[in-house]
């Protein structure tokens, strides 16, 4: 067709569609004119007015048929039919409010859950990162499998060699771990996170600065003026979003830095929570490959995939290991794409598992809605068969039934969106500490589009089976059945299959929930090695500018500790370099003097903490043997160390290390006497299978720049106030870091599991409820159909017990295959949540059996109501119903 014709046709159709009544009106006018003209001609030819009109209509050839044909020719038939279907559906549903409400509520649950979880999945996993071609950027680590270090920092010397020898990266950059610093403005000190970043790391990510510029090569040259780039959040909150900040100075740890730029919102370096970035120069970095302290980013060269890069970097690492075995033997490279690194493998899998869960819930909801539709359709077979007999085409009947399900889905979807809006709020609250990028989760255009799609798809899904089944109705058969509306084999089989499917899907979800519940109980039962009850923590870090030496550090912390001990109601107070679950880990290698390592071998290694006397008492860590530190264990006194039982077990197996010595570094002068052995403590996480070995050194012997005060006291608020006052009195320039209760800190370590469990439990519960409704629906329907038979049997003296047993056994017809299919499905799928489980196998027999029993019981329960109804069947009523 000619392009102009297309336009004319489209215009005609649009006009016809949107101005339907006026188009129909025009056509009526036109026909009227025609008939009048024809009648007039006939009159002139000598007919009577009546004859003339009749002849005119005859020669026209059927006004109504022409009207239909005209409508077809308008090309808007489909749209007009849809509009008619929707109007018809609304009318029918208004007459069946109960049915409509149940289906809409079911769909609301299914669609709402999907919209909420999709908005999380999209925000966390799919929303583009603020980097140029983020999926081409990778993070690199040193890896040492024999020491179980998968993601370890990189030495500057290794980085230099990597750069030199690889052919897979177009750029590489590095940055340091962020550290606490004090930002001073006016008289208000504020604790901020600051990190040194190499200029190439900035250019590699490619994100342009919001204001000013990023850190560039010349900033990292020796002797360059000291500059800083601010993060958006800090700039907005602390500097009021003032664009005049560029070129101004800020005071960080007493040092003046000139602000040269502000980065846009959401920008950060992967795995680095810094708010201020300063230039990192590697010009004078140590050539020692064992000094691993850098985080490394790289951009893949065009055409190189991550697998090839991995292979090549392992080769590079092997060549380094051959050249410098002392520092690099067994060290290889780990690599991860930035999107995966930012979200974390665990969360990625969790969100995917969760998405699977809500799809299941939606399917169950659709099955339920379809079931209800089928039940209703069975009752409407007469109506539909009559309409078919009166000439409605099958397509139109299917369209009408689909119209109903679509309208219901739309109502459910709209309500579901409201539910999702509320649900996202809940997710943000309970997941705030655990889900990365959660602040980016919201209901936006993408989520709306997704929801609309899901809504229409599910309307089609739960409408199509009933529509196809019902529209096939054969008038003769239906009318012969009399008004009883027996559903026929097809409907019943379809409904049975839907219920079996629902039970199977619910079982899979319940198995997931059960496994998580069990592992959560296991996690909570894990002995962390300390008692967090009533213990509170305050983190303080002293800036180098004003506390340059050990004496000043020691004096400040001694004062803080004694102030802590003086607080009202305090049972015990202590200092620790890094409290359990609440700080960075530190470790070092040492030498067991009885068994010095071979030359070139590294000695054993253990984590360490620096603690004051009473640390073990405050946290309730048991002292197995020996003694705690005392005030006498200070610089100048004989050096001492306390070790954990894991150290004793690992390095003095079958021996008693108490009173023995261990040596730090290579010099024999740095030998410490082991004066105590304490119980093991989990410092990191609850899930790690092994307890790490820990050494404790006395704080008075080696004061640290950052320490945490821990205090056992029932009064949390008084503690927080007292700490703030003490710090302010001691040093008005000093910010107090985090103040928290140890119980909160420990709970947070369980937050991911708790979150996953809560969601699984909610969705599995919804699924169970929906399945119960489904079973109930089908059985009540079957019982209703058998009213007559049952009534006769009651009249003949059948005991109600027999009838109840029969109906409940009928439920088992659906429950047993459903459970069997579900068990097979759960066995296949439960491995997907393996990473969320702790101490529980994904095929845990007890959970599988328990959930199966639960579902069977639910099915039996759901069938009890119809069963009782069966026993009440009144023979007279049943017979009169003929």
């Amino acid at each position, binding site marked *: 067709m000619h392009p102009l014709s297309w336009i*004319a046709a489209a215009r005609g159709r649009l006009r016809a569609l949107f101005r339907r009544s006026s188009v129909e009106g025009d056509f009526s006018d*036109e026909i009227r004119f025609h008939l009048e003209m024809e009648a007039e001609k006939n009159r002139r030819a000598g007919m009577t007015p009546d004859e003339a009109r009749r002849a005119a209509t005859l020669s026209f*050839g*059927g006004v109504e048929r022409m009207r239909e*044909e005209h409508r077809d*020719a308008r090309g808007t038939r489909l749209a007009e039919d849809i509009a008619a279907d929707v109007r018809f559906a609304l009318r029918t549903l208004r007459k069946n409010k109960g049915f409509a409400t149940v289906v809409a509520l079911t769909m609301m649950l299914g669609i709402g859950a999907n919209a909420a979880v999709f908005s999380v999945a999209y925000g966390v996993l799919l929303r583009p990162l603020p980097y140029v071609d983020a999926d081409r950027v990778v993070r690199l680590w040193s890896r040492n499998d024999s020491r179980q270090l998968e993601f370890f920092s990189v030495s500057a010397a290794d980085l230099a060699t990597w750069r030199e020898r690889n052919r897979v990266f177009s750029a590489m950059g590095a940055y340091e771990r962020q550290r606490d610093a004090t930002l001073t403005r006016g008289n208000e000190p504020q604790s901020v996170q600051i990190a040194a970043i190499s200029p190439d790391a900035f250019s590699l990510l490619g994100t342009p600065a919001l204001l000013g510029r990023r850190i560039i090569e010349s900033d990292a040259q020796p002797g360059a003026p000291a500059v800083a780039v601010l993060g958006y959040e800090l700039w907005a909150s602390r500097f009021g979003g003032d664009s005049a900040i560029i070129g101004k100075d800020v005071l960080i740890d007493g040092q003046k830095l000139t602000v040269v730029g502000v980065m846009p919102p959401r920008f950060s370096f992967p795995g680095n929570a810094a708010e201020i970035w300063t230039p990192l120069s590697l010009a004078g970095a140590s050539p020692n490959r064992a000094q691993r302290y850098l985080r490394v980013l790289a951009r893949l060269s065009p055409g190189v995939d991550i697998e090839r890069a991995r292979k090549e970097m392992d080769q590079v690492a092997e060549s380094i290991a051959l050249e410098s075995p002392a520092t690099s033997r067994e060290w290889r490279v780990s690599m991860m794409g930035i999107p995966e690194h930012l979200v974390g493998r665990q969360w990625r899998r969790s969100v995917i598992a969760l998405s699977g869960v809500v799809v299941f819930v939606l399917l169950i909801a659709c099955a339920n809605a379809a079931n209800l539709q089928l039940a209703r359709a069975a009752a409407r077979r007469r109506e539909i068969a009559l309409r078919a007999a009166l000439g409605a085409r099958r397509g139109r009947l299917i369209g009408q039934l689909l119209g109903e399900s679509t309208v219901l889905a739309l109502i459910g979807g709209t309500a579901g969106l409201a539910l999702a809006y509320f649900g996202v709020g809940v997710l943000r609250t309970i997941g705030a500490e655990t889900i990365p990028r959660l602040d980016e989760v919201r209901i936006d255009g993408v989520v709306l589009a997704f929801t609309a799609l899901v809504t229409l798809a599910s309307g089609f899904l739960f409408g199509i089976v009933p529509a196809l089944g019902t529209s096939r109705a054969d008038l003769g058969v239906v009318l012969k059945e009399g008004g009883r509306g027996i559903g026929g084999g097809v409907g019943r089989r379809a409904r049975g299959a839907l219920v079996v499917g629902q039970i199977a899907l619910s079982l899979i979800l319940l198995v997931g929930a059960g496994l998580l519940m069990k592992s959560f109980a296991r996690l909570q039962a894990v002995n962390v090695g300390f008692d967090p009850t009533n213990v509170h923590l305050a983190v303080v870090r002293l800036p180098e500018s004003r506390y340059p030496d050990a004496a000043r550090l020691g004096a400040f912390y001694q004062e803080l500790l004694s102030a802590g001990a003086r607080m009202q109601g305090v049972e015990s107070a202590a200092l620790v370099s890094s409290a359990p679950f609440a700080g960075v880990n530190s470790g070092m290698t040492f030498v067991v003097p009885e068994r010095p390592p071979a030359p070139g071998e590294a000695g054993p290694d253990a984590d360490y903490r620096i603690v004051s006397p009473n640390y073990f008492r405050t946290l309730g860590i048991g002292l197995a043997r020996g003694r705690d530190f005392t005030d006498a264990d200070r610089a100048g006194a004989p050096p001492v160390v306390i070790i954990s039982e894991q150290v004793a077990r690992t390095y003095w197996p079958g021996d008693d290390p108490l009173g023995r010595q261990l040596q730090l570094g290579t010099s024999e002068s740095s030998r410490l006497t082991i004066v105590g052995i304490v119980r093991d403590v989990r410092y990191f996480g609850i899930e790690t299978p092994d307890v790490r070995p820990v050494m404790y050194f006395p704080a008075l012997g080696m004061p640290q720049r950052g320490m945490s005060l821990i205090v056992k006291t029932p009064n949390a608020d008084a503690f927080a106030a007292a700490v703030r006052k003490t710090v302010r009195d001691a040093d008005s320039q000093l910010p107090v870091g985090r103040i928290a209760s140890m119980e909160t800190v420990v709970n947070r370590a369980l937050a991911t599991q708790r979150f996953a469990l809560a969601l699984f439990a909610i969705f599995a519960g919804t699924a169970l409820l929906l399945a119960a409704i489904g079973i109930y629906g089908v059985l009540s329907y079957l019982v209703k159909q058998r009213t007559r038979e049952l009534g006769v049997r009651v009249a003949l003296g059948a005991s109600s017990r027999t009838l109840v047993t029969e109906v409940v056994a009928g439920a088992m017809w659906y429950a047993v295959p459903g459970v069997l299919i579900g068990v097979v499905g759960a066995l296949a799928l439960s491995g997907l949540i393996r990473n969320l489980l702790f101490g529980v196998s994904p095929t845990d027999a007890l959970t599988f059996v328990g959930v199966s029993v639960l579902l069977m019981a639910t099915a039996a329960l759901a069938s009890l109501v119809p069963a009782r109804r069966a026993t009440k069947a009144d023979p007279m009523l049943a017979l009169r119903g003929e």
Partner: protein
Amino acid sequence: MAKDTPADVLQGTLDLLVLKTLALQPMHGWGIAQRIQQISQNALDVGQGSVYPALLRLENRGWVASDWGTSENNRRAKFYRLTALGERQLRRETESWRKYAQAVELILGAT
């Protein structure tokens, strides 16, 4: 469902006849129906009403356009006229119709 009427069989032909009629002068639906009947000497037994779906089809394709106007006896009537596209279409269809008719004639004339 509609039965097989001459209108169904002759739909394409009817379109051509309507175009041809309109090529002479703009006209309303009744006039077109009269003209076709007259000129064909009632040989084509087409229900007068069939003209209207045909007109709508043609209008949707952009071959004819319509306007409300006043008829010869002073009534409101819808007048159809041929567009430039319609003229071209008419030429093309006339030509292909003639070819077709010739071909049929040849076959029927062969002995």
